[in-house]
């Protein structure tokens, strides 16, 4: 976990922020503009699809609702003052990152309509075929987790000088790749079987669950920038670390559960000897 060591002027001003304080508007154009463009494109195509019965079947309202919910949560997480207060709370910091990694991406992926026609040999289909390759997704996700989150990374100039600006976007994008592999919303360019997706989900979830366990059960504060930090809501640094462990484990549970379900489905299919298909 990369400790935010940016100025804590907002923390100094208020050590007991309310939910309204956390959600107060604080625009971040780097996230806001792309999110609004994606939202506009999505809902424009959604409205178009409602004109035909085939389109309505392919793109049901619940998918648009889930996508909209994902976007709202993305905007709440990235466009609010909570981003400025994370230096006073490791739990808030981790909660924000987990929202971007484990809540927003599955909602956005579930919002993708069925039967999106993509040619895996051309243009966007080819690019997505590479980005959603399980090896690529797992590699990028692991790189983000390892490079920006292990304590040794604190010594890297590139980490200290990019964490605050890049990490939320990196968590979001790499998690979108991971969740896309797990949920397989674009079968035309995602040939993975349910078994390989299950193994992939298990591999992708394990490092995060392990880190969460360590934080939860460690008797000491592991990240020194928080040892003597002034914490929000009168929590001790150790409280914050344990709370962060809970947040990380709870946030990782749905992905882990889904991985097990996929693995069991694969095992059942194996046991059936191919008499039943996915």
């Amino acid at each position: 976990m990369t400790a935010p060591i940016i100025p804590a002027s907002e923390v100094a001003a208020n050590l007991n922020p309310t939910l309204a304080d956390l959600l107060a508007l604080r625009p971040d154009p780097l996230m806001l503009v792309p999110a609004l463009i994606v939202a506009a494109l999505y809902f424009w195509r959604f409205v178009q699809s409602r004109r035909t019965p085939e389109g309505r079947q392919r793109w049901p309202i619940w998918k648009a609702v889930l996508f909209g919910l994902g976007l709202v949560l993305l905007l709440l997480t990235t466009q609010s003052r909570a981003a400025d207060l994370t230096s006073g709370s490791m739990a808030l910091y981790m909660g924000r990152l987990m929202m971007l990694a484990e809540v927003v991406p599955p909602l956005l992926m579930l919002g993708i309509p069925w039967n999106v026609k993509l040619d895996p040999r051309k243009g966007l289909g080819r690019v997505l075929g590479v980005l959603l390759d399980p090896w690529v997704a797992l590699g990028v996700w692991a790189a983000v987790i390892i490079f920006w989150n292990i304590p040794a990374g604190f010594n890297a100039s590139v980490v200290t000088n990019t964490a605050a600006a890049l990490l939320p976007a990196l968590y979001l994008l790499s998690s979108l790749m991971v969740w896309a592999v797990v949920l397989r919303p674009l079968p035309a360019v995602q040939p993975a079987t349910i078994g390989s997706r299950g193994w992939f989900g298990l591999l992708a979830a394990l490092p995060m669950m392990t880190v969460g366990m360590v934080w939860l059960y460690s008797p000491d504060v592991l990240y020194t920038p928080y040892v003597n930090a002034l914490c929000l809501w009168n929590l001790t640094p150790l409280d914050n670390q344990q709370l962060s462990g809970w947040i990380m484990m709870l946030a990782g549970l749905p992905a882990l559960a889904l991985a097990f379900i996929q693995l069991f489905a694969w095992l059942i299919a194996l046991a059936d000897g191919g008499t039943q298909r996915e």
Partner: protein
Amino acid sequence: MTDQPIPAVSAAEASSGRPWYVSAILAVCAITLVLGGAWVFARIRSPFPFYGTAYDTPVQAAAFKGTDQDGRPFAFSPATDRKVTALFFGFTHCPNICPLSLAYLDKVRLSLTPAEQANFRVLLVSVDPARDTPERLREYVTFFGKAQGVQIAEPALSRVARAYGASYEQADIKSASEYQINHTTATYLIDAAGRLRVIWDYTQLPQVARVTADVRYVLGSAVSAEKAQLGAQP
């Protein structure tokens, strides 16, 4: 994404063209792109690879007044002092962070040349003005080298701390004179033009050579800026 019909491509066909080692090579390329992109992003923000966290746009450091460790009035005027300053907020009863910060900052000072040392100073602003009298501050800062201690009375202290993004709070209070203070642990590097350039957390200070490199760059860039200014004058 298209609604036009395309030739049917089965999952098997889509996967057949990419053996596992090609996927592995693509993964390595993707990782290189992500890490390389982050490196480029960091260099665009700051051409010099600061060890500390660099300010995106240098902010003018706040001026303040107080009493120095010799009991004399002290005025910190970063815009006119023409010195590079490493400033941090701490207190003399601090059991670990403040002594370590002072010790490492003095090592940084000693690793500079005499000419550089003349343009660099370390400033400790006490967040415990009730107990940190000038006498106690003098005893404390001189023990750790050549830092300068400053006592600022409340409520001015809280305004100054807030201006820098620092914060502090009494903790573990046993009596009016027996307590600890939790405080933020950043050291702020202010250039000779009075602008905040870099923040180091105290956990970074043991890397003396890298902290010194940051200081040297800021000392050097201040000299270059001054020369440029003098050159521009008729």
